[in-house]
């Protein structure tokens, strides 16, 4: 039941994103295993460029592993986090699939319009987008407010310029220590090559 439902949802999303099928079609009959936190599943590319869950005995041609530590960075759209996603096997195939999966968008207004009609669906979509935007702005404001409170009023967090100043001081100290170490070495060498005035034979 889960396989049938998942495959139906995936195929519905791909049907809404018509650009995806031509990208996947060259890899027809190949499969990719996705390892993402607790989710471990394999997707197979069909001959019409669509996707389905793979069967019980499928041997994947490639695998994509996303460590849990990358989750928040990926959600924050950190481009450098994408470089840390582990890809094994056929990298062309895995890259094509990852590209499709990361760009697929659910056109919920289109689905809703079949139930409520175009105008209502658009209004509901507009309301949802505005609400989501307001929630996002509120969350950012709240985070900034807490950050400011913990930096200025009750300093639990370090300010950026303080951290930078501290880093500069650490760099200067490290350079000074290195310089001093070189001087000490030089001095030790000089002492070892100078003859001892109390023992001119040695």
């Amino acid at each position, binding site marked *: 039941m889960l*396989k049938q439902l998942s495959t139906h949802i995936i195929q519905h999303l791909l049907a809404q994103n018509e650009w995806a099928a031509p990208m996947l079609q060259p890899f027809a*009959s190949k499969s990719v295993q996705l390892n993402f936190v607790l989710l471990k599943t394999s997707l197979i590319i*069909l*001959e*019409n460029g669509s996707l389905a869950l793979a*069967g*019980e*005995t499928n041997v994947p041609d490639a695998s994509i592993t996303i460590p849990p530590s990358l989750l928040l960075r990926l959600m924050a759209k950190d481009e450098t986090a994408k470089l840390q996603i582990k890809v094994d096997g056929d990298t062309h195939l895995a890259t094509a699939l990852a590209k499709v999966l990361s760009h697929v968008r659910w056109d919920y207004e289109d689905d809703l319009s079949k139930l409520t009609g175009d105008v209502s669906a658009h209004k509901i979509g507009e309301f949802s987008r505005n609400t989501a935007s307001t929630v996002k702005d509120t969350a950012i404001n709240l985070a900034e407010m807490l950050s400011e409170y913990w930096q200025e009023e009750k300093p639990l967090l370090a300010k950026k310029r303080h951290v930078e100043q501290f880093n500069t001081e650490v760099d200067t100290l490290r350079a000074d220590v290195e310089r001093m170490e070189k001087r000490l070495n030089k001095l030790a060498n000089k002492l070892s090559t100078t003859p001892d005035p109390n023992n001119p034979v040695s």
Partner: protein
Amino acid sequence: MTTEHNTHFGFKTVAESEKAKKVADVFHSVASKYDLMNDVMSAGMHRGWKRFAVSVSGVDRGDKVLDIAGGSGDLSKLFAQKVGAEGQVILTDINASMLGVGRDRMLDAGLNVPALQCDAERLPFPDNYFDCVIVAFGLRNMTHKDRALAEMQRVLKVGGRLLVLEFSKVWQPLSKAYDVYSFKLLPLMGKLLAKDAESYQYLAESIRMHPDQETLKQMMIDAGLSKVDYYNLSAGVVALHKGYKT
């Protein structure tokens, strides 16, 4: 002198030459109420299984599809919508009564799907012709499954897919309950709804005699198909096998 080989007909052993006739009798008997019984027996799930088979077939507009043992034409109807006017779906069945039901339904639905009575062990089609061949709930009734699978492989194009949707080996913890359902409840429902307990007794027995998931997978590989994989549906009550001609 020739020796006659035996095969199974449900739990009975019969001569190979007799099996086709006995299977034909069963389906002549149930044809008119076949879909009603399928709905009752599977609680409507057979429609979901068939839709899933179509969704993993990868069939696209313009493709050629062969529906073997297609009977009442459920799958042909779904595939005809997928391939569109530029594609081709052919409905076949060895049983004239079942095929008649399917042919009439296609006509009533305004679909251009030719219906052809033929034996799956001797398909009247050229080599490398179809993009997809499907047999749903039909393979277990065939006398020589290996010959039938080889024929299906022959008519597929290179890159074409063979899909076999068939009852299979249920998940072990459910097997006891499934046995009670199959051998007690199923013939009773057949008696009440189709006035034919014996035919439904045969259906239950033939399901048990059919190869399990792994055996059928190996049979498909032996028939020349590759990348064979299967899906267990409804805890293995049904399995969908898919293989490619390469």
